[in-house]
């Protein structure tokens, strides 16, 4: 018995996958994916570990860089009642993790036309009256893999402060874990997105330089240059690309000017 156990550790019987390459001498650890035990190499992220175990992500995986919000995971450590939350592409596996992916949560999303609803808090209150079901239990904030103060922005909206809500929710990646935990059934992340849209559309001042640039484009100022490019042969385009002037990587802002100024 003892011998078998030892042998297992030397050449572990692991599930195979085509993405992760097991480094020489790497130790494996047990994790439970949807209740079933797998031995996976330590140091992998949850997503890599699941692929190592043979799962293929058709949905529920996106950027793999911790920013798209497609791969929220809920997990618990054996012997502990506490739930933990993370992104599968960012969280490293640990021994005796019980894992479940929540790729989608059926949260209510209101229909609206941003140009018609107006910029007052009442517009948000009317589209998402359920925010007033919040009892400040703070489970949303505890579930957020981006450490967003979710209770803070929902409170700000109840207080009519759209700007505060937009700023507090800026790091939201729309993974939906907040909504999955809400006892008031509030779709926090959709409400926050609306708040940021209202903030951008009605509250933030318009950038003057953007207006000027849009006007220049609409006046046809750049059309000639584009026509010129469109008529070029592939060889000419390649030559131009290779010979293009390029701002040095660490040039101080505003210190560099191209020698060719015809297109400025």
């Amino acid at each position, binding site marked *: 018995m003892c011998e078998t156990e030892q042998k297992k550790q030397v050449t572990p019987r692991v599930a195979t996958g085509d993405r992760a390459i097991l480094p020489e001498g790497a130790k494996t650890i047990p994790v439970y994916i949807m209740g079933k035990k797998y031995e996976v190499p330590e140091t992998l992220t949850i997503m890599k570990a699941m692929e190592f175990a043979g799962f293929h992500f058709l949905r529920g995986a996106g950027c793999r860089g911790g920013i798209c919000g497609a791969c929220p995971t809920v997990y618990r450590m054996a012997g502990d009642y506490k739930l933990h939350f993370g992104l599968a592409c960012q969280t490293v596996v640990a021994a005796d993790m019980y894992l479940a992916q929540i790729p989608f949560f059926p949260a209510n999303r209101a229909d609206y036309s941003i140009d018609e609803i107006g910029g007052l*808090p009442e517009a948000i209150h009317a589209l998402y009256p359920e925010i007033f079901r*919040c*009892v*400040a*239990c*703070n489970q949303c*904030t*505890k579930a957020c893999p981006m450490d967003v*103060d979710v*209770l*803070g922005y929902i*409170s700000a909206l*109840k*207080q*009519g*402060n759209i700007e505060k809500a937009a700023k507090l929710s800026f790091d939201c990646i729309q993974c939906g874990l907040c909504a999955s935990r809400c*006892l008031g059934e509030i779709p926090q992340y959709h409400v926050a997105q609306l708040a940021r849209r209202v903030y951008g559309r009605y509250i933030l001042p318009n950038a003057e330089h953007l207006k000027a640039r849009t006007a220049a484009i609409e006046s046809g100022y750049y059309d000639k240059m584009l026509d010129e490019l469109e008529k070029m042969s592939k060889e000419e385009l390649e030559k131009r690309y290779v010979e293009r002037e390029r701002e040095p990587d660490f040039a101080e802002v505003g210190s560099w000017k191209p020698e060719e100024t015809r297109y400025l």
Partner: protein
Amino acid sequence: MKISYYPGCTLKTKAKNLDIAAVASLEALGVEVEEIERWNCCGAVHSLTADDLIHQVAPVRNLIRAKEMGADKLVTLCSMCYNTLARANEMMKNDPVKRDTINRFMDEEIDYNGDIEVVHYLSFLKEEIGWEKLKSQVKVPLTDLKIGSYYGCTLQRPTEVGIEPLGHFELMNDMFTSLGAEVVEFSAAAKCCGSYQVLSSLPGENNAAAVVINTAAKEGVEALATSCPLCEYNLGKQQQQMQDKGKIEQNVPTYYFTQLLAVALGLDSQLCHFELNDKKSLALLEDKNYLVAA
């Protein structure tokens, strides 16, 4: 003097006229008002269900915010917020089992044992400013204003958290006396305004509110003052509709007590946001020549 202040959601939206006048008045009286950080809804209404601790989490979280800022007192203003915060505080002080359950549930927060004192604005005025000092700061005495202090339900009930015993209205009355107004005691000062019943009655047909207005008018009250946004909605904002429906015989303009305090302290009337009150409220003050514009 610096105080920790809890405004409440309604005071930041529909009842800005209660909040802004209150803060400006305290500042005029030399008090630095510090709004607590990261506050959330007070809980809106104290939950009377026995096994319903989750509804005590919101008020307790606010008390923890105050404690985190090093406060020993939290001043608040809206009758509903005051009631909800004060009752949750009593529970945390006196019920060790519930206190323990809540503290364990809120494991991301520091433990709380009810040691913040929840103070209503009126009590603060009396205890920390004093009527004599207030009197000396009055720039526009509210001479000839026959004011009725309307307490409604939640400032005095239950008695453990009441700002003063039932049947007593000294705090608001003394404030108005200090401001130079003529206080008229009337028999509906602690009658219910109809509260959330307004949601199920047709516009202007909230009979409880009509009783308050009619009683006040009959007993010589010219204007009503309240510290509750729901009372103000039922008595003030609905008043025109009550009149249209023939429910009330005569108008009695309504105010938040802080608006009249700011007026008497000679603050810019813009700060009082009378546009959020019924039109007749502003008109009465203009007739009496109380208003100062910057």
